[in-house]
């Protein structure tokens, strides 16, 4: 193709993309087709990938395809191993894409489809993708070292410690909120509870199969597991209609929360081969399969988006979580736009497989583009629902009232009409007793997915699709829960090992049990409070998680910016500096409001005072009064955690700036730790076959 044709094609992509984004942004009052979202996303991604990412790789990072990567230099046939780029891409994407990009956009849809969509698109191409790619690059140049290690080596001890503490706390909050999402999906739903419980013995069976029956036969074992999972979705429907069995699986939130904690403890103590590894295989297949299916269904079906572009809730009065559009849309959607957690995968894990530096663009930048696309699809699935239905599912009883008639009256009064019969019909179609106040995002996403799948592949199986979607979300939420608890345990063992070396032995059972129990108690506490909170808990935990995740992103971007400056690339430091600045602004604003806002639904302290006053005056109903002291304590704790996060963030940003200023002034700084150049010996065809 000659260059004129090429330029013409890119010009067309640009025009189409601009038209699609403009159409989405300017559309008012009429239903807009979901295909516009897909078109806008694909055009923005294509342009960003072709021009911005390529420019960063060539001019700023100067990736060098003749330079041997750690995978080649340190090849040991196991964790370090040059691998085919598509395989690395698959591993990287499977590792970074969790439930975050599905839940965040669903919650943020309360502002309307537009704010979240724009942030997902532009936050990803200018922020998240750049973070992932640059982190992958600097770790590749440093023998695949982890983010915490690089922060320590390049900026100083403070940065390294902050990264470690940040990772640990974010893990605790993340697991708690994800646990809450699963609990809310299983609450009084025998079908969902059975299906989710069935994933555990199925995973164990797969684990035993690949460990002992046919060692190493991963594909065979996974196939058996996937078939059993699909059967369990069907079996759940049968349990649900069986009067004697359904009672076994019909539980309130609190016993379910304790079951999740017990499961988390067991999973962290059990050997990985029994539960964690096989469950991860299954969840990865389900994840990739379902996401592909969703994309195909949206393209085939082209559903209309019924949510308005912008709702009145941008003023901070939203029923799902309190807080104005700025900064809370940017906090609520972390994964999908920019996620600090990715930096932990992009450093340490993925570089060990990378066979050539030139693949950094595709894997780092491209992997995050695909995650952003998942977030766009979650946004579509949330906004194709009638807004009234969407708010009825996602608003907690504490906001709209526990009675169905009250709830629909209140939601309809906002201008989003919905009726009790409509909700009852929908619940019956989905095989659920009720869909009111099913907060957490999973049920509404599942309803959205079921209605999309239902119309693409047959209306008659709506309940099956709904429970398939719930199972699909639950299975990889539980994988994150297992893996997170385990990582937390390792970190804690490592820290305690400094005090008493015996505690640091990862195979010493007393230490394993003790540290696992501490980690589970950490997230279990927040999960417990989330369950007893009449306002649903998600409205408190999710922003806290968002702030923590953005803080971790700020740490990664600080390390990247510091390294760029030290490498004499000060004039290009804006590529990571600008997203960093934006994150510092939104995280600080959000933290400030969460601490000091007078609005009881936003400010932790205001909320605690309000509750304390009501308790003193005796105006709380009996059940709420019983929980109030715990909630008041928790709100103070949350305020403390927020303050801690924000101090950590500023500390590391200042440390980075101090180092940069010293460098610019010609004073000594910690030296660059880039490993020396070695010419690659790998020929293209040697890799991966």
């Amino acid at each position, binding site marked *: 193709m000659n260059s004129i044709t090429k330029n013409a094609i890119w010009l067309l992509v640009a025009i189409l993309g601009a038209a699609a984004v403009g159409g989405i942004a300017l559309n008012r009052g009429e239903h807009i087709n979901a295909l516009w979202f897909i078109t806008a996303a694909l055009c923005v991604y294509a342009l960003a990938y072709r021009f911005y990412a390529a420019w960063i790789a060539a001019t700023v990072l100067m990736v060098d395809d003749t330079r041997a990567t750690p995978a080649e230099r340190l090849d040991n046939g*196991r964790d370090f191993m040059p691998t085919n780029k598509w395989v690395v891409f698959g591993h990287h994407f499977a*590792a970074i894409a969790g439930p975050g990009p599905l839940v965040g956009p669903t919650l943020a849809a309360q502002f309307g489809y537009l704010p979240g969509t724009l942030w997902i698109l532009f936050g990803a191409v200018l922020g998240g993708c750049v973070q992932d790619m640059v982190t992958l690059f600097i770790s590749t140049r440093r023998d695949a070292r982890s983010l915490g290690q690089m922060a320590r080596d390049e900026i100083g001890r403070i940065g390294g410690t902050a990264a470690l503490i940040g990772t640990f706390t974010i893990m605790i909050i993340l697991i708690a909120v994800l646990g809450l999402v699963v609990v809310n999906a299983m609450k009084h739903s025998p079908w969902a509870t059975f299906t989710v419980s069935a994933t555990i013995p199925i995973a164990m069976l797969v684990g035993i199969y690949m460990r002992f029956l046919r*060692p190493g036969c991963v*594909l065979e074992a996974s196939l058996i597991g996937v078939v059993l999972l699909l059967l369990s979705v069907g079996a759940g429907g049968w349990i649900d209609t069986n009067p004697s069995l359904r009672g076994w699986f019909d539980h309130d939130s609190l016993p379910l929360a304790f079951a999740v904690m017990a499961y988390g403890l067991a999973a962290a103590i059990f050997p990985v081969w029994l539960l964690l590894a096989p469950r991860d295989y299954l969840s990865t297949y389900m994840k990739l399969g379902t996401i592909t299916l969703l994309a195909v269904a949206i393209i085939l079906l082209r559903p209309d988006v019924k949510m308005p572009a912008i709702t009145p809730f941008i003023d901070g009065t939203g029923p799902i979580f309190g807080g104005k559009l700025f900064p809370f849309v940017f906090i609520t959607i972390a994964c999908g736009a920019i996620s600090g957690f990715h930096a932990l995968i992009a450093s340490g894990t993925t570089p060990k497989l990378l066979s050539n530096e030139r693949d950094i663009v595709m894997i780092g930048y491209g992997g995050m583009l695909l995650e952003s696309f998942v977030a766009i699809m979650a946004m579509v699935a949330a906004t194709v629902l009638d807004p009234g239905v969407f708010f009825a599912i996602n608003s907690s009883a504490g906001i709209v009232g526990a009675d169905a008639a009250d709830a629909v009256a209140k939601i309809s009064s906002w201008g989003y009409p919905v009726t009790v019969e409509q909700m009852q019909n929908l619940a019956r179609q989905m095989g659920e007793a009720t869909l009111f106040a099913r907060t957490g995002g999973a049920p509404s996403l599942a309803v959205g997915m079921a209605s999309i799948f239902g119309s693409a592949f047959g209306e008659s199986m709506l309940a099956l699709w709904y429970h398939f979607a719930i199972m699909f979300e639950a299975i990889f939420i539980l994988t994150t829960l297992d893996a997170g608890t385990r990582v937390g345990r390792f970190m804690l063992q490592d820290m305690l090992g400094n005090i008493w070396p015996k505690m640091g032995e990862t195979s010493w059972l007393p230490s394993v049990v003790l540290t696992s129990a501490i980690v589970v108690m950490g997230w279990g506490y927040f999960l417990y409070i989330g369950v007893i909170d009449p306002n649903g808990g998600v409205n408190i935990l999710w922003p806290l998680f968002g702030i923590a995740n953005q803080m971790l992103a700020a740490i990664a971007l600080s390390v990247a910016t510091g390294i760029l400056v030290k490498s004499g690339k000060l004039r290009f430091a804006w590529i990571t500096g600008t997203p960093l600045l934006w994150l510092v602004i939104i995280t600080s604003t959000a933290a400030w409001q969460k601490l000091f806002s007078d609005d009881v639904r936003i400010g932790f302290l205001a909320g605690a005072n309000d509750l304390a006053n009501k308790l003193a005056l005796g105006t709380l109903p009996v059940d709420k009064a019983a929980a109030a002291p715990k909630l008041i304590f928790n709100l103070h704790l949350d305020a403390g955690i927020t303050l801690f996060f924000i101090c950590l963030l500023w500390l590391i940003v200042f440390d980075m700036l101090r180092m940069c200023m010293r460098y610019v002034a010609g004073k000594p700084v910690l030296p660059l730790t880039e490993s020396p150049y070695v010419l690659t010996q790998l020929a293209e065809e040697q890799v991966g076959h």
Partner: protein
Amino acid sequence: MHVKIKAVWQTVRQLSGDDAYERYLQHYAQYHQRHAEGACHPALTKADFFKQWQDEKWTGVKRCC
């Protein structure tokens, strides 16, 4: 066509780790014997290799949110 299907199948196997042992054996044949002339430890059996491989795969942060 046949070649293409085979390549896709290879990628699937590699993605899932189904062929990890075969790749280990290749690596072993290429590096260990050539350098150590038999003084090196013998290659692991499939079951032993898989145990080590699985345990290594799960240390550190492997999954995200």
